[in-house]
């Protein structure tokens, strides 16, 4: 029987992390080199963890499916990273960042975790500056801040609209330094396809060499997964094309519980669809909502050009519904407001599936130069993609799947239910509850990698007895055979449908029935449809090429096979959660004004799912305790 122990330290919330750091066991500096640690993934969480662990003296092996550790999708984050520095003197504090993040997550995260995140946020900014990350500066040379959704203070540090890139290049440079020093062994173009568990401990991974096709084994004392989120289950999302669930899904099937899979974030400021040939959706930074105003025509079906619609015939939906936060309402709320307007026939553009984001007032108020400085490259990007000029006509935006708050269940030490398997960044479920605030993903990824795992992994290593395990252990052979079998099976089906065709169909099911608004009937249908589609995949997919070659069709097929299992779990989880909270909106549970109706009495728990068979899970519940912030109706009005 699995018992979920969050391991949140006792004591006042301000002291939990400090006293935990003191109480954890330490590994003697001279002994650290005797421990091998594998890090999978080289985004913010993986790169920062790998660099920090190597600096401490551990032997670190890093795997990434990219050609270089500088490509992971953290790089695409535009807007910024939060920290409680209170440099602008506008009333920020660790406590306020804690409060905003917990409330933003609609009270479905652990207080202890969120407080720690707020606490270490300031160290992250210091660390990044020391590495040479070029955050924006004021004329006096001090750091500049901007505002983001869900907060009434300016606490977001940024570097133009390329903050994610600059932070990742910082972590990449720290990682590269350790590679140069020989303390990190870096393996690129390797995709983790299996986790090796020996005597109940995670002792290594099995990965496919994406160039030669060879299945390779890597042994260690502990494994860290930092492999990102699973929004690509929707086919169309803001994620990079290669983002996938495979690493965490294979670990899940080996015994790691999957927490809150239905908590997915639909981001409000994405570019609308252009048509059937679309491969992904493009996100534009939420920072645009600092100065852009979201509106739709007051009258449904109004087909006039935006500039011909007079002020009094416009509905500024967010300003009207949420006067306090206005255009900076959190993501889940803003996305739903856009959907509501489009459902009411007020959507704009050719498809009617878009709302305006208008800068005309801001340009008038601040001048073109200021707006250019703040958002120049976003305006360029918009024009490039849509061939419309946002200086003259308002942008058109629509929500798109973006971030997944759910992920593998971890305790306060970031360890999953498999001893020795740690999960970092978006791949875990830990800090964002049912909705993540803007500029908090970068914060969490780097908090986990730079400032949490270096401590907690030492505690595990120092307190665990290990037997000697090398890659010739029979468990590695077993895992390799399982991977080779699956590969062989995929290549031998030779059916009539392509992987993308099936993936697209899965995406439509997910978007329509497990997307922005969900209901019991739709979720039950989705479960049935996904099961049928999974069967169809294994009978009728066509994966060309060979296993012993660079084979991108095979890579995609393996990932979609896993999405076809995960998609069902997302629907199962959404069906279990008979409440609305954050990104999870169940149509049956709403207030008269359409706001989400949470049920704290019955659903203030983390839903952690144990894999039994494909399509069969056991639910375990971790009750959430709120000592410091009593859950209230989350109002941004």
């Amino acid at each position, binding site marked *: 029987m699995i018992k979920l122990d969050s391991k949140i330290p006792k004591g006042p919330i301000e002291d939990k992390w400090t006293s935990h750091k003191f109480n954890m066991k330490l590994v003697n500096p001279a002994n650290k080199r005797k421990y091998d640690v594998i890090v999978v993934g080289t985004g913010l969480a993986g790169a920062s963890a790998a660099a920090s662990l190597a600096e401490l003296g551990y032997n670190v092996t890093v795997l990434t499916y990219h*050609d270089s550790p500088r*490509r992971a999708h953290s790089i695409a984050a535009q807007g910024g990273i939060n920290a409680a520095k209170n440099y602008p003197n506008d009333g920020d504090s660790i406590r306020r960042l804690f409060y905003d993040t917990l409330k933003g997550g609609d009270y479905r995260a652990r207080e202890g975790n969120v407080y720690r995140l707020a606490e270490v946020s300031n160290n992250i900014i210091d660390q990044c500056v*020391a590495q040479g990350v*070029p955050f924006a500066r004021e004329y006096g040379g001090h750091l500049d801040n901007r505002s983001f959704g869900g907060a009434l203070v300016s606490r977001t540090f940024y570097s133009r609209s390329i903050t994610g890139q*600059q932070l990742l290049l910082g972590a990449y440079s720290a990682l590269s330094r350790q590679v140069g020093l020989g303390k990190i062994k870096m393996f690129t173009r390797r995709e983790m396809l299996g986790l090796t568990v020996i005597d109940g401990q995670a002792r290594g991974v099995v990965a496919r060499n994406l160039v030669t096709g060879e299945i390779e084994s890597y042994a260690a004392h502990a494994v860290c997964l930092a492999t990102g989120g699973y929004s690509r289950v929707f086919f169309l999302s803001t994620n990079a094309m290669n983002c996938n669930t495979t690493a965490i899904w294979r670990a899940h099937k080996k015994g790691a519980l999957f927490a809150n899979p239905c908590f997915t974030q639909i981001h409000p400021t994405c570019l609308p669809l252009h048509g059937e040939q679309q491969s*992904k959706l493009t996100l534009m930074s939420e920072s645009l909502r600092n100065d852009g105003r979201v509106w739709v025509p007051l009258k449904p079906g109004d087909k006039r050009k935006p500039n011909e619609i007079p002020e009094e015939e416009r509905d500024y939906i967010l300003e009207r519904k949420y006067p306090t936060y206005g255009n900076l309402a959190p993501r889940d709320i803003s996305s739903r407001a856009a959907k509501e307007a489009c459902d009411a026939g007020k959507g704009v553009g050719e498809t009617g599936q878009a709302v305006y984001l208008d800068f005309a007032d801001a340009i008038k108020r601040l001048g073109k130069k200021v707006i250019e400085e703040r958002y120049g490259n976003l305006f360029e990007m918009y024009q*490039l993609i849509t061939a419309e000029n946002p200086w003259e006509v308002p942008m058109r935006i629509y929500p798109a799947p973006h971030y997944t708050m759910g992920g593998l269940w971890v305790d306060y030490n970031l360890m999953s239910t498999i001893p020795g398997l740690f999960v970092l960044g978006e791949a875990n479920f830990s800090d964002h509850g049912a909705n993540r605030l803007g500029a908090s993903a970068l914060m969490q990824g780097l908090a986990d990698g730079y400032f949490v795992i270096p401590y907690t992994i030492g505690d595990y290593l120092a307190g665990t007895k290990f037997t000697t395990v090398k890659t010739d252990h029979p468990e590695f052979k077993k895992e390799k055979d399982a991977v080779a079998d699956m590969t062989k099976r995929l290549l031998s089906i030779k059916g009539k449908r392509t992987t993308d065709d099936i993936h697209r169909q899965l995406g439509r099911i997910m978007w329509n029935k497990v997307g922005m608004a969900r209901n019991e009937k739709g979720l039950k249908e989705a479960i049935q449809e996904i099961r049928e589609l999974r069967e169809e995949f294994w009978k009728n997919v*066509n994966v060309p090429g060979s296993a012993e070659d660079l084979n991108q069709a095979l890579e995609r097929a393996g990932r979609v096979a896993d999405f076809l299992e995960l998609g069902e779990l997302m629907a199962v989880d959404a069906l279990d959660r008979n409440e609305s909270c954050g990104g999870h909106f169940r149509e049956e549970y709403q207030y008269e004004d359409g706001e989400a109706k949470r049920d704290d009495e019955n659903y203030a728990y983390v839903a952690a799912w144990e894999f039994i068979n494909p399509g069969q899970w056991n639910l375990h519940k971790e009750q959430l305790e709120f000592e410091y912030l009593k859950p209230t109706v989350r109002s941004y009005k």
Partner: protein
Amino acid sequence: MSGNMNLTLKIWRQANANAVGGFVTFNVKNVSPDSSFLEMLDILNEELEAKGEDPVAFEHDCREGICGACSLVINGRPHGPMERITTCQLHMRHFKDGDTIWIEPFRAKAFPVIKDLIVDRSAFDKIIQAGGFISVDTGGVPDANAILISKDAIEKATDAAACIGCGACVAACKNASAMLFVSAKVSHLAVLPQGQPERYQRVQAMVKKMDELGFGSCTNTYACEAECPKGISVRNIARLNREYFNAKLKSENVEA
């Protein structure tokens, strides 16, 4: 749909690093002008896969112009005919119905072909590993605002740091020189106060590694800047040369 295009593609295919490659002709139909160039290749690949044939291998990931994974030489130009964008940001509205498009991998001795349009750019990582960083461990750093940096310096640093490491500069250069890439990293760190202690070591170590890896010399044709999707300026190369020269003059730690 009206306005959709039919195109002829001449695509470089090569089974692996040691195989002999060549152009293969494909036809792709009904491409929307709003599709991206890579979406056009997706259509081709899906057709090939449906027939059980090996799809054309090409590298790509974010499709937003920031990860640096996509490459391709399109009609003779790295990242295609438009300026200051990556291949993934190129839209089909810039082509005409009936066009023939030539698609090749980035070509350079230091970037060997792995398969079809995919090349090995790990040489760039090796240059960074040789010195493209500030040596600071996690923890024990001063408060972020204790290091004051002028707006001018931060703008210069950010201009250089915007490099995405795609390698178009190398592909564009007749000598396959990596000077724009290396100079961007050297400049980023050389103009910041945090980069000063290792300033001279860094430039020497990175240039040495670059030379070892088989990149060519810079002969100031500026093709790199012209094809750089991020508009990294050749002024960075001038700065690199100054840094390198100064390192030889001023540094106690001079490499032969």
